[in-house]
């Protein structure tokens, strides 16, 4: 239940998800309206990295079939994804993005 370092805040940009692997867990980080969110990086529909997808209005679209997840809650927003993706708590300390695995 400890927060682990995932990235420097400076590495994140509003359009582009950032992929990080922490203890072999694949995480995607998103910068939305100045806040950082984190989800598991693997789509729940078929194997694809959400960090390769399209981020807009707080939703990440999977690059494979464009199913959408809300990055804040992990909720599946549109077909063909129906199962929510796991989210993680994030804290930003001194420019470091920390994720609670």
């Amino acid at each position, binding site marked *: 239940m400890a927060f682990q370092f995932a990235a420097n805040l400076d590495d994140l940009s509003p*359009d*582009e998800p950032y992929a990080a692997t922490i203890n072999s867990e694949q995480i995607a980080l998103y910068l939305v309206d100045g806040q950082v969110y984190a989800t598991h990086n693997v789509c729940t529909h078929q194997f694809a990295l959400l960090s390769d997808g*399209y981020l807009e209005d707080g939703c990440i679209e999977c*690059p*494979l*079939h464009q199913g959408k997840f809300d990055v804040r809650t992990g909720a599946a927003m549109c*077909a*063909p994804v129906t199962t929510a993706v796991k989210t993680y708590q994030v804290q930003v300390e001194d420019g470091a993005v920390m994720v609670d695995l």
Partner: protein
Amino acid sequence: METILIIGAGQAGGRAAETLRAHGFDGKVYLIGDEQHRPYERPTLSKTVLTAADDTECFSAWLHSSEFYGTNNIDWLADRVEHLDVARRVATLESGRNISFDKCLFTTGGRARHLPNLPDSRRVSTLRTLADAMSIRDCMASARSVAVVGGGFLGLEFAASARARGIDVTVVESGERLLGRALPPEFSERLRVKHEQNGVKFMLSASLISSMEQDSGVTLSFADNASQHFDFVVVAVGQEPNDELAKESGLETGNGILVNAHCESSVEGIYAAGDCANFPFGADERRLRLESWQNAQEQAIVAARNMLGECVEYRPSPWFWTDQYDWNVQMLGMLDGSIDRWIERKTSEDKSLLMGLRDSIIVYALAVNSGGDLRAIRRLVEQSIGIDPAALADPSVKLRQIERNALS
């Protein structure tokens, strides 16, 4: 109480029923389908359904839970409409039941086309339904060789799945190249090479004359007197739209049920959507029938909304995907003679974005493992927005930046 009848309980029919309720329709909804299953999506039938290890867990692409229809008061019936009296608004079902309706939506989809010299049998099958896929799965369990007749998207996906299971595959295609109308020639070639690298054998420009089935398998004979033996055969030579009932009922048909941009047929109050619907497309309003997940999804939603009094136009930017081996290939827009230049952003053999432009507008794009990039240019394609070709060709310029510049 108003009654809406939906004929065909596939993806389009199921999505339409859901949309009616989501938009507040509280009249009667009948959803009639001739498959034994509740509405489901077909894309996985040629992929994970065939390759998954477990028979009981190989399929899960249901549109809704089984409780959904009861909970939402949708009368889903496993039955078939035999006759439709359009004037009196009464449907007669195969079971003998009569249903009176106010509005009707045809989502009858299509059926797999058969070749006259290759009828269905124990070892020869088409692939359209979940039942077909499970039966093919059964054949695959003990097969060492298979012939796929038809090198289109479905045939190629099946070939990739068969190779994943270690089965020898031969693709028999009558055309000179794969997907002659759907793919740019260079990509057609790349795709063939990808399959050959995975052990698939191709017979292009093939003339299949006859087939003979014995206990041990199927022998296919070709025009040059050659013949080959396979454990089983899958026929994937396209789809016929199920527009016969509509035609008999007096609706205008012709490569599907003719509808306008609002999905309404030639008869007022009767609509069509999905694989069976032929609609006006593009600036020149040419007639088109699309066979894709996106079309079944989105056209059904538009039709349902219009049946409830909205006035939404169906103006899609066709989007299609195919998954073969480790390639996710997506296509956006239409491949036609208007393309005057091609630009490619190629990261590797397995990751690229090919774009066809007309007057600095991207009209067609083909992405290999680059769905995120395709999505970044999607609005530019959908809205025919001009871009700077030099920037597009420059790999150091991010597509999201190009998108932002073009939209501002």
